[in-house]
């Protein structure tokens, strides 16, 4: 009965002071939303990150560190230290334990996006997420020498579609001064968005890669030696070297043995890495940052809770009359103290519920936009245990900080005299 009285009194009191409290509640709501959002993004980004590449057992490139190899082959960040010979690739093709191979040839760019030279096996064997294959949103895979397939991000950002003629640039960088002007490529296909770096690249055949570099042996185009598309038809463009190879094995259990063999390959120095292991090492590096971010957000929540208590303590002086009335009518100091606890808890719960709604709204609104603009895949999903724990810790923390005004109210109301306070 007393609990019901305390609840209804606290409720009426909150409603009475709603104008002042709405502001502190808003502060708390925003900070909890931030906390929840960052925690949510953390898991989503991690999910998105670790699903960048899947089903590929080994990535093979010239001898280098595993992070470097992973970064330039999968994330298109940084450059290869060296190439691997085409004969090495051919030898890998003969390896019976290897099921499939995707050759990757890097080095050129298209308005800041990487150009990846590969073959049809890329479309067939490359997997991301939970083993999802690449699908064409439009058109078809490259067939002729000067065909190009664009990633979803490239097509959208540069607003290119099927049939457009594009000129690739030599080397990386957004503004390149040496363009393959003589050998324009025709867009034959656009990939569906994957939310991975695949969206941010253009794909051509290895032959196309070779063909457009004819006459570029010195690093710049030598006039008269480059090919025209007509001349290119029918010629053989077997590459001399490629940058890296994605490999899938017949039997996963042999992964480590094949890796060791490749690392000791006699023909040339190679590095074979396990993408999963490299990804988690990369994530470990990045998780420092996101953990720091979460910590900062935690402090933001604590700050707004302290702000809330500061407001409650300020209101306490205004509440002296009301406390005097309640005490004289027979309310115990415990009841008075419980009002503060309940009010603070109530505000925290309201803030948490509002921020849940706000987050859900924001995610469902921003999700598609984030995917199309940034290639980050964020979907509305039920909260996980960690997120519930974070959310529940907010009201708990609110009760803890509310102990300050509650205890002071309890102490004051024990020595409360009859009538107006101070008059005793």
């Amino acid at each position, binding site marked *: 009965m007393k609990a019901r009285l305390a609840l209804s009194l606290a409720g*009426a009191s909150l409603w009475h002071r709603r104008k002042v409290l709405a502001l502190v509640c808003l502060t708390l709501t925003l900070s909890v939303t931030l906390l929840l959002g960052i925690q949510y993004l953390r898991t989503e980004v991690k999910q998105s990150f670790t699903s960048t590449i899947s089903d590929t057992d080994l990535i093979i490139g010239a001898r280098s560190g595993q992070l470097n190899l992973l970064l330039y082959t999968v994330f298109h960040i940084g450059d290869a230290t060296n190439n691997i010979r085409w004969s090495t690739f051919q030898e890998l093709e003969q390896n019976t334990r290897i099921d499939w191979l995707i050759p990757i040839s890097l080095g050129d760019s298209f308005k800041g996006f990487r150009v990846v030279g590969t073959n049809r096996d890329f479309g067939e064997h490359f997997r991301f997420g939970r083993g999802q294959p690449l699908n064409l949103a439009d058109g078809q895979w490259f067939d002729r020498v000067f065909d190009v397939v664009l990633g979803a991000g490239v097509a959208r950002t540069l607003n290119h579609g099927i049939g457009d003629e594009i000129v690739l640039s030599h080397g990386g960088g957004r503004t390149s001064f040496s363009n393959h002007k003589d050998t324009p490529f025709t867009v034959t296909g656009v990939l569906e968005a994957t939310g991975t770096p695949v969206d941010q690249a253009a794909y051509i055949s290895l032959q196309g890669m070779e063909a457009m570099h004819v006459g570029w042996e010195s690093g710049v185009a030598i006039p008269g030696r480059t090919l025209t598309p007509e001349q290119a038809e029918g010629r053989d463009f077997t590459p001399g070297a490629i940058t890296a190879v994605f490999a899938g094995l017949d039997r996963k259990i042999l992964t480590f043995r094949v890796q060791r063999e490749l690392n000791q390959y006699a023909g040339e120095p190679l590095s074979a890495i396990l993408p999963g292991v490299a990804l988690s090492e990369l994530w470990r590096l990045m998780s420092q940052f996101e953990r720091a971010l979460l910590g900062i957000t935690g402090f933001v929540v604590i700050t707004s809770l302290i702000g809330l208590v500061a407001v409650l303590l300020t209101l306490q002086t205004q509440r002296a009359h*009301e406390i005097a009335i309640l005490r004289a009518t027979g309310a115990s100091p415990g009841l008075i103290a419980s009002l503060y606890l309940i009010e603070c808890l109530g505000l925290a719960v309201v803030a948490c519920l509002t921020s849940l709604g706000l987050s859900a709204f924001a995610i469902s609104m921003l999700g598609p936009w984030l995917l199309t603009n940034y290639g980050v895949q964020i979907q509305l999903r039920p909260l996980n245990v960690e997120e519930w724990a974070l959310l529940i810790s907010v009201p708990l923390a609110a009760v803890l900080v509310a102990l300050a005004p509650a205890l002071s109210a309890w102490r004051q109301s024990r020595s409360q005299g009859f*009538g*107006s306070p101070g008059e005793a």
Partner: protein
Amino acid sequence: MNSQSEPGARSSEYVPAALEVKNLSFCWDSQHPPLAFPDLSLPRGEHLFLHGPSGTGKSTFLSLLAGMLAPATGSIRLLGADIHKLGAGKRDRFRADHIGVIFQQFNLVPYLTAEANVTLPCRLSQRRKTTTGEAPTPAAQRLLTALAIPQSHWQRKVTQLSIGQQQRIAAARALIGAPEIILADEPTSALDSDNRDRFINLLLTMAEERNTSVLFVSHDRSLARHFHHQIQLEQVPA
């Protein structure tokens, strides 16, 4: 000194006085001289006017009577119970069960409606709720009607009401559930003389209907004529 009966004990023949004060003194701290209060005894259902100019410790006296301050010496028996022998929790419950209070001003909880302010004692005390004999809300409404609070004001925030109306609502709160004792601390000081007399008449009449003793404190001696007894509170060294 207090050997007559056990606290709280009541026999069918002996009706304990509503209020009995003996040798009461109070001391704020060692720097202040102690305050001494006159002995008094108030039978059930009778009203006492306590006259005292400011600074004679009226509010302190009421705080002692309500069990909210502890005396230095002496005893206070309310309905035969020595309230300062009760624990803090029991004292609070005793106050909820048996005492109605009216202050000089700021009588009402600002965020409750007039009606909710009146029913507050019934929510704090099961006994007061039982004594109303009906649901608290209709009882409160009858009291409000009797005290001439228009029905349109019952659901209003009390801060929107006039001082006179607020004081009458406080009287209704003190009366609900027929507590044995009402402690009133200068409840009429903010009212004009017409309102003052009407307020006192209403309060005393309705208290008599409920066999409730009213202890009324004021500096205005002209009000004493409404009461059965009067006592002068003077500052006397203990």
